[in-house]
C-alpha cells in the first residue's frame, strides 16, 4: 500500500520511512503516515536546524519563558510579562498573498493569547523582489492588504516593521510577523495536557479540507507547479479569531484550564501530540466529534487540516461547565473530543474504532535530527572582493545631490507611509512612537512604563557574510530599541533560508546562527523563541540568507520616549560612534553601481553595547531630543530622515572625508554613504552638549558635534567642501513618494 510515490508525496525520505517502521514495529496505515509526514516535516520538527539552534543563548534573569512553548516571555516589572514571538508565512504568501499574509498574522496572534497574554502590538518584516516589476506590486498590495485586513479587524495595532526590495526575493517573498502581548507574570498559561481522564476540548472554527499538508508545502522548494498548491493555503476569519481571543482570555481568568494550544501548522495532529508530550501524557480523541464544515472528511484529512482559528484545550476536572458557558457567551462551542491518557500515546478513533495510534515520543523526540553537510559557498570569495578605485567614475558636481536623492528614492530606504497607513497603528490607544518614527513603542496602561520593539535584518549583508550579517541584524534591532530610550531585554528570531539539503545553504544557516548567538550573548538579549523557514527557493534559486531579529526593550518612563525626528531649529547634531568608511554591501553600491559586493561593516560588540547603554542613559536623563540609527544609506540618509515629517527643519553638517581610496570622490562617498555599524545621530539643545559629550566619554563612546539643525536646506560638507545642498522639500518629496508613485496611477 505504501509505495515510493506515496512517500514522495508526503515529503518523506525512504530512510525516514524505515525509521517509522522500526519504531512502530509495523507498517503505518495511511492516517499514521500522514501524521508522521507533518510532524517530521522540516517546518514542525526543525530536523535540519535543531542542532544549530541549541547553541543560542536562551537564558537570563529577565527570561520567564524560553523556547519550547507557544511564545517566549520576559519580566517587565509590576508583576507583568511581555510575551512575544516572530513567525514566517512565506510560502503561503507567495501562492496567495492576501490570505497567506492574513493567516500569518492570525497564527502569531494565537500563539500569544494561547499563553494567557492580551496581544497589544504587531510588527512585520517583509521582503519582495524589485518594486519596478509589476508582479512585485501585486504581491506587495496583497500581502499588505492581508496583514491590514486581519490585524485591523481584530483590533491589534501594527506599530512598525521593515520592508526591503531585492531581486533575490522575486520568486520567494518573505512575510515575517511579530506579535507582542501582556500577561500577569504569574498567570502565564502553557500548552500542556495532563491529568488522566481530563477533558480535551476543541474550540473555534469548524474543520475543513483547507491547508492539508501546509507544513509539508512549507518544507519544499517552489517550481512552476506551485500555483497548483493553492488549496493548501488556508483562509482566515479575523472575526472568529477575535471571538476566540476574548473567550480564551476570559476562560484563562477562571483558572479552569490545565493547558491550551492553538492549532497552527499540522493542526489537530501537532496540538494533540505536543500538548501530550509536554505534559508527559497521552491524548485520545475521536475525529467524528470534531466539528466539520464539509461532509465525508476522512480521519486523515481531519488530522492534517490546517483550518484557521481553532484551539485545543484541556479543562480541569469539574470545571467543564464553566468553560463551556464562557464559550457559549461568545457564540462559540467548546466540544469535548477526547481525554487525557496516561500512556503517552496519540490515539485517534473514529466513532470508537481505532484509526491511528502512535507514541508521542516517535513524533517529537524521536523525529529525525540531521547534522547536514556544510561547505562554504563558492560565490563568497568572489563577491567579497571590492576594489573601490575600480568603481566607474560618476557624473560631475552635483553628483552627491543626485546620489542622496537616488538613495532616498530607493524603495528600501524610502518612506513606507503608503504601507503603514493601511494598518491601524493606533487602536488600543497605547502607541506613542508611530510607525516610520523609529522603533514601535507602546505604553503599558496602569504603569509608567512602555515597551519598544523593532524587527531588523539585512539579507544582502548575510549573503556577503552570514556570520557578520546576522550579528549586525541583532545589533541593529537592539540599537533601534535603544534609540527610543528603552533597554533591550530579549529577542526572537525568524530564520529564512534556502534548501538545507544543499551544503552551501546549510553553511549559511550555521554561520548566521553562530553570529546571532555571539551578538545576543554580548548584548544580553537572549533568544526566547522564534521560527525557522527553510526551502525558500524557486527553481533552485535561494533567497538571500535572511535572519530577521525582533528585539523587545523596556522604557522605564513612557514620557521619555525618543523619536527619529529633529524637534527644533538651532539644536546641535551629534554623531555617536565612528565611521570607518565601509562601502561593502551598501545600499549606495546597489543603487548607484548596481553592485552587491564587498564585506559588510565590521561590528565591535563591546562598542555596540556601550553605545546602547549610553542611549538609554541619555534618554532617561532627558538629554536627547531625537535619535536615529545610521543604517541603509549611511550618515547622509540618516540626517536627511531626521528632517522629514517635521515642519521642514533643515540641517547643516560637516564631517571628514574617509581615506579608503585614492579617488577623493570615493572618500567623500564613503563618509556620506558608508554603513559602518554602531552609529547613531542624535540632536540636543546646545546647553546639553557638554554633558552629553561627558557621558559619552565616560562610556567610551566616540561622540562629536557634526552640525546644527535649522533653515530649510540639507547642507552636508565632507572633507571641508559642501558636497550636498538640497531643499528639505525636494529631498522629502523623493523619499515620501517613491513607493506611492507605483500605485497612484492605478486608483480610478
Amino acid at each position, binding site marked *: 500500500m505504501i509505495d515510493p510515490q506515496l512517500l514522495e508525496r508526503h515529503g518523506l525520505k525512504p530512510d525516514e520511512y524505515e525509521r517509522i517502521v522500526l519504531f512502530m514495529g509495523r507498517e503505518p496505515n495511511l492516517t499514521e503516515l500522514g501524521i508522521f509526514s507533518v510532524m517530521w516535516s522540516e517546518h514542525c520538527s526543525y530536523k535540519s536546524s535543531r542542532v544549530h539552534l541549541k547553541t543560542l543563548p536562551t537564558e537570563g534573569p529577565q527570561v520567564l519563558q524560553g523556547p519550547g512553548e507557544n511564545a517566549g516571555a520576559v519580566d517587565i516589572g509590576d508583576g507583568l510579562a511581555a510575551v512575544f514571538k516572530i513567525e514566517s508565512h512565506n510560502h503561503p504568501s507567495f501562492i496567495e498573498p492576501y490570505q497567506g499574509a492574513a493567516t500569518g498574522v492570525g497564527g502569531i496572534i494565537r500563539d500569544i493569547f494561547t499563553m494567557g497574554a492580551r496581544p497589544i502590538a504587531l510588527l512585520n518584516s517583509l521582503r519582495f523582489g524589485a518594486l519596478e516589476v509589476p508582479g512585485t506590486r501585486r504581491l506587495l498590495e496583497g500581502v499588505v492588504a492581508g496583514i491590514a485586513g486581519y490585524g*485591523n*479587524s481584530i*483590533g491589534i495595532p501594527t506599530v512598525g516593521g521593515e520592508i526591503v526590495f531585492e531581486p533575490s526575493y522575486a520568486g520567494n517573498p518573505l512575510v515575517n510577523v511579530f506579535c507582542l502581548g501582556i500577561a500577569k507574570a504569574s498567570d502565564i498559561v502553557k500548552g500542556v495536557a495532563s491529568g488522566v481522564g481530563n477533558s480535551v476540548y476543541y474550540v473555534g472554527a469548524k474543520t475543513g479540507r483547507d491547508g492539508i499538508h501546509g507544513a509539508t508545502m512549507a518544507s519544499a522548494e517552489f517550481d512552476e507547479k506551485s500555483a497548483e498548491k493553492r488549496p493548501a493555503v488556508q483562509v482566515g476569519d479575523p472575526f472568529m479569531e*477575535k471571538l476566540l481571543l476574548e473567550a480564551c482570555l476570559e476562560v484563562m481568568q477562571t483558572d479552569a484550564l490545565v493547558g491550551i494550544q492553538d492549532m497552527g501548522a499540522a493542526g489537530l495532529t501537532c496540538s494533540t501530540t505536543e500538548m501530550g508530550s509536554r505534559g508527559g501524557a497521552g491524548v485520545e480523541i475521536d475525529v467524528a466529534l470534531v466539528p466539520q464544515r464539509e461532509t465525508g472528511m476522512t480521519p486523515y484529512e481531519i488530522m492534517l487540516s490546517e483550518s484557521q482559528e481553532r484551539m485545543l484545550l484541556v479543562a480541569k476536572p469539574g470545571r467543564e461547565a464553566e468553560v463551556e458557558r464562557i464559550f457559549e*457567551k461568545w457564540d462559540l462551542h467548546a466540544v469535548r473530543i477526547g481525554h487525557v491518557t496516561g500512556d503517552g500515546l496519540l490515539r485517534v478513533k473514529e466513532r470508537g474504532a481505532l484509526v491511528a495510534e502512535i507514541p508521542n515520543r516517535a513524533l517529537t523526540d524521536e523525529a529525525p535530527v540531521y547534522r547536514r553537510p556544510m561547505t562554504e559557498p563558492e560565490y563568497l570569495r568572489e563577491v567579497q572582493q571590492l576594489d573601490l578605485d575600480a568603481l566607474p567614475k560618476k557624473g560631475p558636481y552635483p553628483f552627491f545631490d543626485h546620489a542622496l536623492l537616488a538613495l532616498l528614492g530607493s524603495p528600501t530606504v524610502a518612506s513606507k507611509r503608503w504601507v503603514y*497607513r*493601511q494598518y*491601524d497603528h*493606533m487602536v488600543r490607544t497605547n502607541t506613542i512612537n508611530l510607525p516610520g518614527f523609529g522603533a514601535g513603542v507602546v505604553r503599558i496602561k496602569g504603569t509608567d512604563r512602555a515597551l519598544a520593539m523593532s524587527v531588523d535584518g539585512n539579507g544582502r549583508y548575510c549573503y556577503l557574510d552570514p556570520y557578520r550579517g546576522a550579528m549586525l541584524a541583532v545589533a541593529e534591532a537592539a540599537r533601534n530599541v535603544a534609540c527610543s530610550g528603552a533597554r533591550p531585554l530579549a529577542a526572537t528570531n525568524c530564520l529564512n533560508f534556502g534548501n538545507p539539503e544543499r551544503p552551501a545553504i546549510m553553511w549559511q544557516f550555521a554561520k548566521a546562527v553562530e553570529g546571532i548567538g555571539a551578538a545576543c550573548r554580548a548584548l544580553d538579549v537572549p533568544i526566547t523563541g522564534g521560527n525557522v523557514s527553510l526551502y525558500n527557493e524557486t527553481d533552485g534559486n535561494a533567497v538571500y540568507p535572511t535572519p530577521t531579529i525582533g528585539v523587545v526593550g523596556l522604557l522605564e518612563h513612557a514620557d521619555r520616549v525618543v523619536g527619529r525626528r529633529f524637534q527644533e531649529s538651532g539644536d546641535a547634531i551629534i554623531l555617536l560612534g565612528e565611521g570607518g568608511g565601509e562601502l561593502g554591501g551598501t545600499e549606495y553600491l546597489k543603487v548607484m553601481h548596481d553592485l552587491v559586493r564587498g564585506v559588510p561593516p565590521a561590528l565591535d560588540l563591546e562598542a555596540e553595547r556601550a553605545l546602547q547603554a549610553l542611549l538609554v542613559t541619555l534618554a532617561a536623563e532627558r538629554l536627547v531630543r531625537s535619535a536615529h540609527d545610521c543604517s541603509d544609506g549611511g550618515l547622509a540618509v540618516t540626517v536627511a530622515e531626521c528632517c522629514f515629517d517635521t515642519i521642514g527643519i533643515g540641517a547643516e553638517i560637516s564631517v571628514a572625508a574617509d581615506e579608503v581610496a585614492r579617488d577623493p570622490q570615493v572618500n567623500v562617498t564613503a563618509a556620506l554613504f558608508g554603513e559602518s555599524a554602531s552609529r547613531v545621530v542624535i540632536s540636543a539643545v546646545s546647553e546639553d552638549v557638554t554633558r552629553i559629550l561627558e557621558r559619552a566619554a565616560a562610556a567610551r563612546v566616540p561622540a562629536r558635534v557634526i552640525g546644527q539643525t535649522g533653515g530649510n536646506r540639507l547642507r552636508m560638507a565632507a572633507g571641508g567642501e559642501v558636497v550636498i545642498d538640497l531643499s528639505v522639500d525636494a529631498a522629502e518629496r523623493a523619499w515620501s513618494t517613491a513607493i506611492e508613485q507605483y500605485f497612484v496611477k492605478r*486608483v480610478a
Partner: protein
Amino acid sequence: MRFGIVVFPGSNCDEDAFHAAKTVFGQDADYLWHKDTDLKGADVVILPGGFAHGDYLRTGAMARFSPIMAAVRAFAERGGPVLGICNGFQILLESGLLPGAMLRNKGLKYRCEHVHVRVEQTDTPFTRAASVGQVLRIPIGHGEGNYFAPSDMLQRLEANRQVILRYTDPHGRLDDTANPNGSVNAIAGLCNERRNVVGMMPHPERACEPLLGGIDGRAIFESIVGTFRPADRFALQPSVVGSGVGDERSADQRSASLSGERHR
C-alpha cells in the same frame, strides 16, 4: 456621569473609549454587552469603533439587530446623548438613527492617520465645548468612511445644520486632498434632527492624552462631561454600579461586567 459603552462581538475600540471616559476624564463607565437589554443607568451611550459582527454583509448591518440596540434606540428617543465613533457611526446609519450611508474609501484602501476636521456646529452634546470653525487634529482608521447621502437628503442635512464636522486642511479650508475618504460635502460627523445622536468617523478617544501625540479629541469628551447636569438623566432607572480602574488589565473588569457581575 455614567458612560455606557456597547460591546458588540468584534468591537475593538471599546476598551479605548472606556479608558478615555474612566481614566482620562474620571467618569463612571460600564461595558454594555450587545445581548443585554438595559443600559445599566448610562447617562451617555457610546457605540465604539471596530468590526461589529465582523462587519460581514455590510459595515454595521448586523449590529443593528443586536438586542441592546432596542434600548439604545429608546434612550435616543427620550433625548439621551448617543455617540457613534467609526464603526459606531456606521451602526447608527444602518439602524436609521442617523441618515445616509457609508461607501468604501475613494482610494479603496483602509486609512489610518491624523486628519483635520472643522467644527461646524456646537449645539450638540458632543461639540458644545468647541467653537465654530475650530480645527481639531484627530486620527481616523477606516476602510469605509466615504459618507454618502442623496442630494435631497444632503440639502436637508445642511439646511438643518446637521453636519457638525468636516474634513479640512490644518487651516480649516475645504480641500479635496484633505478629505481622506471622498465623503460627500467632506462630512466627517453628523447629528440627528433632535441633535442628541452624533456619529463621527475620526476617533476622539485616540487623541485625549499628550503621550499619544495630540489632545484635540478631548473637546468631544469635555463637551459631554463638562455640560452634563444630573437633571439631564435620560435613563429609566439609574442603577448603582461599582467601579474599577481602566487600564491594560481592565479585561478582568470587562469580562466581569459583561457577565453581569458587579465589580469593585
